[in-house]
């Protein structure tokens, strides 16, 4: 991640991060994003099913 990309993200998020912490934040984000950039976003597993009907709580649309 370049400093320019980092600064763009900071601006978009509307937060303030002091100059002396930018290097740390870039490392945090860069290290965590690196593995994601090695995977094919079309083929990794999806988050389905988003809704299940096995939980103990009330079931959406099911009469008790």
């Amino acid at each position, binding site marked *: 991640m370049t400093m320019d990309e*980092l600064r763009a*993200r*900071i601006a978009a*998020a*509307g*937060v*303030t*991060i*002091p100059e002396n*912490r930018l*290097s*740390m*934040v870039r*490392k*945090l*984000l860069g*290290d*965590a*994003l*690196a*593995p*994601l950039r*090695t*995977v094919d*976003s079309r083929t*990794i*597993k*999806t*988050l389905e099913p988003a809704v299940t009907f096995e939980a*103990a*709580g009330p079931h959406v649309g099911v009469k008790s």
Partner: protein
Amino acid sequence: MNDTHYTTIAELGALYRKRTISPVEVTRAQLARIEKLDGALHAFVTLTPERALADARAAEELLKRGDDRPLLGVPVGHKDIYMTRGIRTTGGSALYADWVPDVESTVVSRLADAGTVMLGKLITHEFAFGLQFPGHKFQPARNPWNVAHIPGGSSSGSGAALASGMVHGATGSDTGGSIRGPAAFCGITGFKPTYGRCSRAGVLTLSWTLDHTGPMARTAEDCAYLLQGMAGHDAKDPASSARPVDDYVGALVGNVRGLRIGVPRNYFFDGIDPEIATAFEDALATLKTLGAEVRDLTIPAFDLARSFFLIMVSEAFAYHEKDLRTKPELYGDVLRERLLTGALVTASEYVQAQRVRMQTCAEVAEAMKTVDVLATPTTIAPATPFKVAYDPELAFPRSNMGPFNLTGQPTLALPCGFSKSGLPLGFQLSGRAFEETTVLRLGHAYQKATDWHTRRPPV
């Protein structure tokens, strides 16, 4: 009275029932030890001596009436992200420095009902995430094996208090290794149960989908006793499991012959300190002599585990956003910017990280069809010196523990040696979901065959 600072929970119970000692005597001895040692170790953020003595007197009365519950009169401390009614809960942060909750966390309540003696609240890394840097409102705990080193975090006070014999049991929480890291760095035993096994109701949130609560002690057996008192369904925690609670203490008996242990050889050994690598292989050799079968595995998705940080920091920012935007000055230096990193993760990146997590869960589930337990080094280096930990550029080091927060598997961290410089080294055992009994039985068998967990720091 003999020195009981390091007796196990089972031994303590036996002494109580033989009337050799009483809970009040032990509690007074523990308070004296805290008075003597904590000025240098800073494990406690709030001491509750009056509450402790009241708990001890109540336990004493129950013992006289023949009550034989195993946690009766056992002195414990609680990580200071567990809310305690009428007792301040700081989260290790200036933001909550004077906050006195009017509710009690489920786990604290359950352990109190089980008859434990509450000695006080144990310092945590700020909001279970950030080491207190110099100038912070609160002092960070120090490692009893060498006070120039951190005790690990975020359950730092719990690790330091157990290693120094100030408590017999403690609560911890683990979002990316906060129970297991202090266990490794302090030479104690910590257990992250299955996600959903122990309630998080009344515990300050770091990251909903990764947060676990669990016991910390000096042995696997003591962890079993504490977990027995902590575990169980709680309607106040949406992730809480309704599964029945197993008999963790009863499951400790029996051998481990034929148990299949898999060692994922990718990811966990990258950059490992040679002393930890050797201690880990020695631990495997011991497990083989006990009759376990050990085989190597490769679980490719573990190589993507660093994306774990995106989930944790996004959820942490979501939790803290309001306070970060309105009262940023109350957050510790460096922690504030770490949390703000969560604002920079895009929605797509968060989703992709969760998808990678699903991939990891699927691959591990497949591997767990061929083995009963995974064994890995808990950390790749011994306890970090403060002077290194205080470098913001250290950022968030690659973790051997985070992968098991992604999968939610029960994972026990226990000591397996010492470095030449005298710092503890550890390894971890991970079982299938809700198979806490298997992990505890294996850890207990290992500790019966070794003495690493009986070594004491020079305090």
